[in-house]
């Protein structure tokens, strides 16, 4: 029995760098330029209509250092795709998915807060969880564990 995800993987085959399976979902590793067109196809042709999560992983010893991770879900077929795109520290930018999914707005803002990934095309990358004036990106591995940026001066 070939599942729907096998079919998706085959039809996408040419554009995708690496494809594997993990916990029942399809994992695609895409080059940065392929991201937007592939997600566009996944949404329109394969009915992955829900963007569940946008996050990133910091691999301090790897080059390129960051992986931006997207989770897509199909409410019609109830299956999932995970997409990873590697970006470098010098230019940590990917195309934004706000043109395809409204939920990308806030999740990309959060990812920008925490990892400093720049989402080109997201109109509003102001801090969402951090506060104005916060310097740095706290979930990067080189952000000190005890680095605090208090808004109120300490009394002791």
């Amino acid at each position: 029995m070939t599942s729907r995800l096998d079919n998706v993987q085959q039809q996408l085959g040419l554009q995708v760098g690496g494809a594997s399976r993990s916990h029942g979902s399809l994992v695609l590793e895409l080059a940065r330029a392929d991201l937007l067109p592939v997600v566009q196809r996944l949404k329109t042709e394969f009915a992955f209509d829900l963007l569940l999560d946008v996050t990133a992983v910091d691999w301090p010893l790897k080059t390129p250092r960051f992986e931006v991770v997207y989770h897509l879900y199909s409410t019609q077929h109830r299956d999932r795709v995970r997409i990873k795109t590697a970006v470098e520290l010098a230019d940590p930018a990917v195309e934004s998915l706000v043109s395809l999914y409204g939920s990308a707005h806030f999740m990309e803002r959060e990812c920008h807060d925490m990892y400093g990934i720049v989402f080109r095309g997201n109109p509003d990358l102001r801090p969402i969880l951090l506060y104005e004036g916060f310097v740095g990106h706290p979930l990067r591995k080189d952000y000190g564990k005890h680095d605090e940026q208090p808004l109120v001066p300490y009394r002791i």
Partner: protein
Amino acid sequence: MAKTIPIRTANAPSQAFEYFSTKKDELVGWARKFSLFPYPFVTACCAMEFMAVSSTPYDTDRFGAALPRFSPRQSDLLMVVGTLTHKQAPILLKVYEQMCEPKWVMAFGACATSGGFYQNYAAVAGIDKIIPVDIYVPGCPPRPETVIDAIMKLQDRIAHSHHPIINKNF
């Protein structure tokens, strides 16, 4: 007939004022310790324990600390229940400054006391870095008995402390 010994001589001035000023602190302390109006500054999961300690089985009403006031201007016990983040610290400071004297602060739970296990960029490691604290309640979350013990200790302190009618702020 036994001779009575006068407490004061007939022509000595009245000592009513001395008597009044020593007993005044006791009276005011007694009144204040049974009319603690708490302001719950509730930020995290300790809120569940705060609800438990306020409701029937434990019932802080017995200590006169039952009526949460949701305006800092009407309250005199600031209960900081839960984690304080750096983003919220200015709000806590403003609430504290809005409270009228006399005021007391309780750090409820491990996070309010020391930051608990949140030793990171987001959390303040103890509210005493922002405002002065009168009593710390340990536990994650504290048992209701611990909270009641803290309220009683605070009441003892209020009862035995000096209550000036006029202080440097007024």
